[in-house]
């Protein structure tokens, strides 16, 4: 990358974290149930999926409630990062039209907002772990690495969507439909090997799928991803991030005029 993106981002980390924490704060202030709201959506989803799959469809997945919860947390952080990132430039138009700083900072901070909320959800997960008297395996220590990768992937997607949305406002609706489809085509509430092998292979092209599998393996099953899976996760993340970043850079100069 020709310019000093990373050092610029590092210099303005104060701005990124402050905007992110304030967004979290405002989010909870504006709703009656406040803080609890952020748990309700995943918990409700958890209850419904659990009911459907454990009683009606008789899923035999080990530690199914925890399996589901991990899946939901990982899915929500990705879908929130990309959705918040998508509208971030429009939401913060009032600021970026009046003061210059790297516009990427706005997108990074909205992804960070989603990851802060994920922190709360992991706190809820800890409660579940305790309630089920589940002892997490040692491989859970590698989860932060996976989350860093997920952050970079989400950021790449968010950068691309954010800049495209400035030009085409209906990207938002297209993305919502894609996310809806993604929810069902990702092993959140089922296991990928429940599909015939060739279908599973196609689904695995979506980088979120191997990330999801790896999260389940690390947190619940004390198993490490294969070298191929690891490489695929890292490489697809890098490719998506670089695409997002380059498109953003190309369009950056005219963003303010198009807002």
């Amino acid at each position, binding site marked *: 990358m020709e310019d000093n993106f990373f050092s610029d981002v590092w210099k303005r980390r*104060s*701005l990124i*974290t*402050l*905007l992110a924490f*304030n967004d979290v*704060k*405002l989010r909870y*202030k*504006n709703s009656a149930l406040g803080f609890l709201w952020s748990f309700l959506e995943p918990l409700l989803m958890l209850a419904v999926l659990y009911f459907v799959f454990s009683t009606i469809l008789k899923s035999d997945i080990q530690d199914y409630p925890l399996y589901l919860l991990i899946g939901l947390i990982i899915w929500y952080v990705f879908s929130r990062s990309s959705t918040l990132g998508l509208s971030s430039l429009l939401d913060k138009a*009032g*600021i*970026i*039209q*009046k*003061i*210059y*700083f790297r516009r990427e900072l706005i997108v990074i901070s909205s992804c960070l907002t989603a990851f802060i909320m994920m922190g709360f959800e992991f706190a809820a997960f800890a409660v579940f772990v305790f309630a089920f008297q589940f002892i997490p395996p040692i491989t859970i220590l590698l989860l932060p690495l996976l989350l860093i990768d997920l952050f970079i992937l989400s950021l790449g997607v968010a950068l691309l969507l954010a800049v495209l949305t400035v*030009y*085409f*406002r*209906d*990207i938002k609706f*297209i993305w919502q439909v894609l996310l809806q489809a993604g929810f069902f085509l990702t092993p959140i509430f089922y296991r990928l090997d429940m599909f015939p092998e060739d279908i599973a292979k196609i689904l695995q092209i979506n980088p979120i799928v191997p990330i999801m599998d790896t999260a389940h393996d690390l947190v619940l099953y004390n198993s490490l991803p294969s070298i191929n899976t690891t490489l695929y996760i890292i490489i697809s993340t890098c490719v998506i991030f670089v695409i997002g970043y380059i498109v953003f850079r190309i369009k950056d*100069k*005219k963003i*303010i*005029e198009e807002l």
Partner: protein
Amino acid sequence: MDSDTAIEVTNLTKTFRIYHEKKNSLYEYLTSFFNKKRTSEELIVLKDVSFSVRKGEMLGIIGFNGSGKTTLLKIIAKIYTQDSGVVNTKGRITPFLELGTGFNGELTARDNTVIYGVILGLTKKEIEKKIESIVRFAELEKFLDTKLKNFSSGMNARLAFSTAIQVDPDIMLVDEVLSVGDLPFQQKSFNAFMDFKKRGKTVVFVSHSLENITRTCDKALWIHEGRIKAYGDPNTVVEQYRTFSQKKS
């Protein structure tokens, strides 16, 4: 650029694309392939503008509405990108194009000050250290933990102005916001500007108050329809501008 120049603008040109019918969705964009119409035209906002401002100088920019004054400030502040020409600046720039950028009514004065300071380029620690002197200058000590939505617009403006001053930039770009607050506060902010100048800092400000220009500025720049019409001694430029305006009306 020699060492005592703060801002140097050379052959600056900027055009905007004005849409007759703005296409804002992918759907419209795709359908317009089959329905070709000229829907935009170029508007030249600034044409071949060159000038320079020295450190410690105060430059006043005058001109009719829509003549390109704010666009010029926004290009110096890097918010807009020029089509051609070069802008060189030295030191930290604080654009003060609006009072309280990023202010949020739901947050307290303290939180808003911190956000504003960080947006303007300080770190959180730096701005937290200055918060006492900011509210003292704004005379809002008692309201530090009041939500901003309960502030009057004058209080809002005072808080914003005090924060911007405390950020202590090298170059300040001010767009028509000097007339904030009541008379005593106006006097106070005027003094703050003069003090700012004395310390070798540079101010560029856009104003319709010709009296302010002649009273405070070292130089004046008159922009008309995107071109420089006159540049130099404030009294002369303002006089030319007055005569021109009277002839027009």
